């Protein structure tokens, strides 16, 4: 077995998580083992990376991600992330990571106040992170976007800092679907091991079940690069 096929990637389930099965499936399609992690257990089961999937944990009560952030498993995630463990937050998972202060900024309701579900073009603004190194710098990818609280906000000082340090990982291309400041779709921490974004790479990982890409119906599998990236990161670590 190669080092890649031995990689174990944890997927956390909180009460109200919706996309944990899809995330686990994406991990397996990329060639790694998916390990289910439970919000109530302070145990990461020695995984090599962690995915916080999308959904509506705790019904988005209080603020999206605000209650999940205090789950027993999150204390371990914060420690491990600060120690360099690759962590990816998708949609609600991104919201949990901002609430846990692993990533800067926060998400508020979409500026148009409606839930949105569409295939969205993004530009990879930083391909040097643990979750983006399989992409070319500036590459355009198309993956699904579906959220209600997806408007990325933070103060101007933080925005300027993120831009200066290359920590904007993804930007919306063509259309800003939720009013996010400076079209930001995803950000990374300083070290590049923690990445969060609102769109859903795990829904575009298998031909026939991906996004329409102009030639093949549901043939777009641009999301697979996230999982290929982290496997490359682990092999090269």
């Amino acid at each position, binding site marked *: 077995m190669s080092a890649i096929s031995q990689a174990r990637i944890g997927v956390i389930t909180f009460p109200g998580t919706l996309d944990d099965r899809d995330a686990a499936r994406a991990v397996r399609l990329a060639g790694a083992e998916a390990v289910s992690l439970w919000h109530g257990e302070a145990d990461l089961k020695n995984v090599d990376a962690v995915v916080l999937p999308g959904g509506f944990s705790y019904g988005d009560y209080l603020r999206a991600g605000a209650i999940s952030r205090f789950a027993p498993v999150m204390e371990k995630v914060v420690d491990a992330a600060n120690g360099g463990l690759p962590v990816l937050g998708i949609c609600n998972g991104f919201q949990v990571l901002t609430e846990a202060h692993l990533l800067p900024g*926060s998400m508020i*309701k979409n500026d148009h106040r409606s839930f949105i579900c569409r295939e969205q073009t993004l530009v990879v603004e930083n391909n040097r992170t643990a979750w983006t190194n399989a992409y070319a710098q500036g590459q355009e990818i198309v993956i699904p976007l579906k959220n209600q609280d997806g408007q990325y906000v933070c103060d101007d000082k933080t925005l300027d800092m993120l831009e200066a340090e290359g920590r904007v990982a993804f930007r919306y291309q063509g259309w800003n679907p939720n009013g996010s400041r400076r079209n930001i779709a995803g950000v990374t921490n300083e070290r590049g091991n923690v990445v969060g974004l609102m769109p859903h790479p795990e829904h575009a990982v298998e031909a026939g079940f991906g996004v329409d890409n102009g030639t093949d119906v549901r043939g777009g599998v641009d999301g697979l690069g996230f999982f290929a990236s982290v496997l490359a990161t682990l092999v090269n670590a």
Partner: protein
Amino acid sequence: MGRVVVDVMPKPEILDPQGKAVAGALPRLGFDGFVSVRQGKRFELEVEGEVTPEVLEKARKAAEVMLSNPIIEDVVSVKDASGEVA
């Protein structure tokens, strides 16, 4: 039974989509003259016994750590509301 009331509001510089929706709906119902609306949150924390300075301090801490997110919200007040009618 003592009660602490915590009020949290979106920061002035942060867009408030919910407040905007309410502001848009008011004139349609004939409630004219309200030029803007901002929507916040009120938390009522009940305790056994009196609201002591220690209880208030704990409520302030909870307001900072959990009830609000300092990036998008301000805690505008934390007060003993034991005497108020619920």
